[in-house]
């Protein structure tokens, strides 16, 4: 149990340390900006949590996010109402997720390879459609998603809370969530037990795709552009958030709360480095170190107990 709380304790320590180290840290402006900055990674990490629990991996999240954001903003540029644009982005994400899931389960190809492939395809198609150029003519009201406030709280935080609760319920209180744990923990036993493994694996990738579509619109709203090059390298941050939060790449382990903590640990590390004037180059190295440390601690714990 103590080890379960380790990520949370790390987050708290980081929070206190940064409040002491920088007078700017504990301000409304700074904290809301941390929330806004981490929202995109956070939302995608929720979907990734499910995938990793089910024993998979999805490298295509960043590219799918960019694809969805681009198509969504192009729809807005073409005069679609904002909800319709968001819906299109969600549909795009869902489509890519389904494609990933079907390729993995029907062709029985390793998810690492499949999603590495769809990463390339999604990114390439995005660049072809946009001709490499960002979409700029977007209605001003669209910025509300990423930059607006509702009841004094950033709107993205409401989105994040909604998605987190949804994912938590899905994971802990539905058959689909339970099957995800079973498939990730021991796919052979799941198959022997008569669980429709292919269906549920596909569903998990589709759900993650949906969240990537949403993340694409959040990112576009924050930047007020549809960037075909958005989200490059996000897959690694997303996976890192899940893993720091206690998710295991062997499958069968992970939680929504853990992933949120993991994503915020990375957000605070980035924010703290900015405030303390640590170079962004060193930042990357620090985050890399934290990932290895988090997993190492987890492994040592497991070895001691089993």
């Amino acid at each position: 149990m103590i080890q379960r709380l380790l990520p949370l304790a790390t987050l708290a320590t980081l929070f206190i340390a940064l409040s002491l180290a920088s007078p700017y840290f504990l301000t409304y402006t700074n904290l809301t900006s941390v929330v806004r900055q981490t929202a995109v990674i956070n939302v995608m990490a929720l979907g990734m949590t499910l995938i990793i629990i089910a024993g998979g991996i999805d490298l295509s999240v960043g590219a799918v996010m960019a694809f969805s954001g681009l198509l969504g903003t192009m729809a807005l540029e073409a005069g679609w109402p904002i909800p319709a644009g968001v819906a299109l982005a969600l549909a795009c994400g869902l489509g890519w997720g389904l494609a990933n899931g079907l390729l993995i389960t029907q062709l029985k190809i390793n998810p690492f390879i499949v999603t590495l492939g769809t990463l390339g395809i999604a990114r390439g198609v995005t660049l072809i459609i946009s001709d490499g150029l960002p979409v700029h003519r977007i209605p001003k009201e669209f910025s509300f998603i990423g930059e607006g406030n509702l009841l004094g709280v950033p709107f993205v935080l409401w989105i994040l809370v909604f998605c987190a609760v949804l994912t938590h319920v899905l994971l802990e209180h539905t058959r689909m969530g339970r099957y995800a744990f079973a498939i990730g923990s021991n796919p052979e036993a799941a198959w022997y037990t008569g669980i429709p493994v292919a269906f549920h694996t596909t569903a998990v990738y589709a759900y993650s795709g949906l969240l990537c579509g949403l993340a694409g619109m959040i990112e576009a709203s924050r930047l007020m552009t549809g960037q075909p090059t958005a989200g490059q390298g996000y897959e690694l941050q997303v996976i890192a958030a899940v893993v720091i939060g206690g998710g295991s790449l062997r499958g069968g382990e992970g939680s929504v709360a853990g992933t949120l903590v993991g994503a915020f640990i990375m957000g605070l590390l980035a924010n703290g480095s900015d405030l303390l004037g640590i170079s962004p180059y060193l930042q990357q190295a620090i985050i890399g170190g934290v990932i290895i440390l988090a997993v190492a601690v987890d492994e040592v714990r497991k070895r001691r107990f089993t």
Partner: protein
Amino acid sequence: MLLELRGIRKRFGGIEALRNGNLAVQGAEVHALVGENGAGKSTMARIIAGMVAPDGGEFLWRGRPVRFPRPADAAAQGIAMVHQESLLAPHLSVAENIFLGREPRLPLGWIDRRRLYQAAARLIEEHRFPLQPDWRVERLNPAGRQLVEICRAIQHGSSLLIFDEPTSALSEAETVEVFRIVRQLRERGMGVLYITHRLEELRAIGDRITVLRDGETVFSGPLAEVGTEQIIRHMVGRELAAIYERKAQTPGEELLRVERLTRRPALDSVSFSVRAGEIVGVAGLVGAGRTELLRAIFGLDPVESGRVWVAGREARIRHPRDALRAGLALIPEDRQRSGLAIRLPLAWNLTLAALPQLSRWGFLLAERERQVCEEFTQRLRIRAGSLRQPVGRLSGGTQQKVVIAKWLLARARVFLFDEPTRGIDVGAKIEVFQLMDELARNGAAVLMVSSELPEIVQVADRILVMRQGRITAELPRGASQEEIMRFATLHTQTALRGNREAPTEEETP
């Protein structure tokens, strides 16, 4: 004396694989090592080859005590092993495989391919093997692969060659070929340790025999002086530690009926039926097709032909899900690998097959789930600290009960057990039998595959004996172990006619 083992002991976790292993092999003899599945033959072989270290006992090589910490140390002394499962690199050629890791070198570490192929050709020529040095190993049949293994083993002048179940993957013609080579090696003065459980082979090849039973050497002597019946008695004749009495009862309606189930080469037109309240045992040696039979019924492997009825209705089972719906349950041999999600909590494992009944609109009914978990842990006396404990931490016997409970929760009526007592201690064994008995008394049909003959004799109402994918006998309660063993090992008329074309996939012991 080439090799002498005295009082060798070896434990693997909670299982004592060898308690008192004695063996003496001379040069220029073929020494047969026989025993039931799990008697400790392979462990002994692996100790000799330096693959595992013994816990105790004396190990003499050419009269001097030795220790082989690594396989390479045994190889350096002239001990080589031809493995049960092929350890060849399938994409490399015959020559490359023979000299793998010992290739002739040119300066700068380059491999001298010309010398490599010449040396291989010489070796093959010398033994008149039907091989070519440049053939790719993946194209070879099992016998060909075995010849490559033999080449590799003798290539650096070994004086003791160990064969671990060499013919289990071979057809009869291929077996004859391997025997010819084994005799040839003996004539060159090599000692050959030949592990098998096919008794009919022994006469053709062995000089002396050592019988292992429950990790102990129970007999050793010249093969010519013992009869086959006597060997079988040595193999099975153990006093039972576990006393278990089962009262037979009148069986009810037919719950499982299998007709002409065929999946070549593992299963050849298998037909039988099991009625409610019955426990039917399936006996046979490793590779006889017993596990394959359960897998085929349960939809884990596709079948070529044959039909299955469950409770009077024909069931088309192509997927374990169909089996689950039809009311079948499979308790696999390897619980950790295919029966349980060992890192997940006890409760989740218990309800995994029954979630459709424990959820509404896809949402789990937590309270009902907790209730049934408590009900079933009590009913099956599953001892665990809490329902949230990972099942991997529970004892083997308790894990077995969790698997059974999982299927009971899913309302299964036909239970297929594959080696239900493997890896669990005596007390837990009796409990598992009581559970099976309870299942039967509550109207379930039980089909039990076991390599433990005494257990089958004690528990089963009827016994099916399999050999080479066929049922060779159906024996009533009270059949002796010797009788079962005879049908399981000896060639019957039907078995002789059914000459296999392709090798069976071996169950790993």
